[in-house]
């Protein structure tokens, strides 16, 4: 079964939304909110779009609103993959 890891999320974040100047994505960022990391709602929407393309899972807009942290996004995606 395909799973989606925090490292996958880090790669997608940096690849499609860039890396904020004061942030190291390799740090323990799983539970830091996207807002605190320096990613706005548009950036999270872009990450969700890339995840959908890569894994073929559908992520509705209201689910994107609930993804407040990278770990929350990872957990959501894995639930969808397991379903």
């Amino acid at each position, binding site marked *: 079964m395909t799973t989606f890891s925090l490292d996958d999320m880090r790669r997608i974040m940096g690849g499609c939304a860039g890396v904020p100047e004061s942030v190291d994505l390799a740090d323990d960022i799983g539970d830091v909110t996207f807002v605190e990391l320096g990613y706005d709602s548009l950036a999270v929407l*872009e990450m969700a779009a890339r995840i959908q393309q890569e894994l073929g899972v559908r992520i509705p807009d209201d689910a994107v609103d609930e993804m407040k942290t990278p770990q929350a996004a990872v957990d959501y995606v894995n639930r969808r993959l397991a379903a």
Partner: protein
Amino acid sequence: MAERTAPATRPVVTGIGVAAPNGLGTQAYWSATLDGKSGIGRITRFDSDRYPVRVGGEVSEFDDTEHVPSRLAVQTDHWSHLGLTAADMALRDAALDPAGLAEYEMAVVTASSSGGTEFGQREIEKLWSQGPRFVGVYQSIAWFYAATTGQISIRYGMRGPCGVICTEQAGGLDVVAQARRLLRQDARMVVSGGTDASLCPYGLVAQMSNGLLSTRDDPERAYLPFDADACGYVPGEGGAMLVLETEAAARARDARPYGAIAGYAATFDPRPEPGGEPVSNLRRAVTGALDEARLTPDQVDVVFADAMAVPERDRLEAQAISAVFGPYGVPVTAPKTMTGRLYAGGAALDLATALLAIRDGVIPPTVGVRATAPACDLDLVRTIPRDGPVRTALVLARGHGGFNAAMVVTAT
């Protein structure tokens, strides 16, 4: 349209940032320009072999990921990257820390004529080849004309009046005129100027539709304004950003201005009649700008020409200049022969160049032109710079669709 400016609120330029095909950074650009070093060459940003226009001015030293912070780079077009970089240089040059100023007293007004065409092309390619879900969200904010202004505003917290002016090549002067209006109101400082970067297939093909671009392959013979051999202009990317303040504000913080914006006027050309002679109102822009500056033609030390290198347009510009200054009556130059025409960035760069000419007392050359066309009775500064005090410079710009603008800058 002319406006008077009281001396206390006279706008001065205290910072310059340049991203030009022949130099990234003001000093690199200015040395190259005085040395007659051109940045025009084969277009390499895409495979231009199959296009009729293959020569352009690219800012080749520029690295989008090195010069722009990563988060900002992903959501903006190459044209905004050049603009953000030039704006940062201008602020550093002005030694003005935006964090120390009131956010609503800082304004941003830039010129753009193509918007984010390269970014847009990339997303359109994804739309057509992969489908709508593959189009990135940043397309929604990267392409539009005000994107550079908006991103500069966000980056430095400049929340005063912001805007964009789209008058093609005239935009680089029109924005500085708008900056001047804002300085008369509540703005403490304005970041102004312009860049453009449309050297991608979509952008270039759109530019080619006017039929005025040079299709010559030899970079040294491709762009020859006022020459009998003129064959259209070469497109380029880049431009310049300026920091403007009132003279009083600049003096109060001991800033040393490059020069003052002393006069400006804009006019429009009538729509050409089928089969009729083209009519240019450039002359009225020149006289309007001089009147506003309360200067007579003999007080102007140099004219930075619009220099389209299209024989009829060259003749109209030469006529406008000669009508005001007399035949061979004033030194005329077109350093853009080393960069190509930069669209919204062109006149902004000319304005920056004029201010550097005033600072150093030297007129930069026009390169490539061997002999002026018979209809162009201009004293063109060719090949090498011309020394001499430069206290007052006139910058001319014409934008596609009939925009004319003229701006006078003087030593402070």
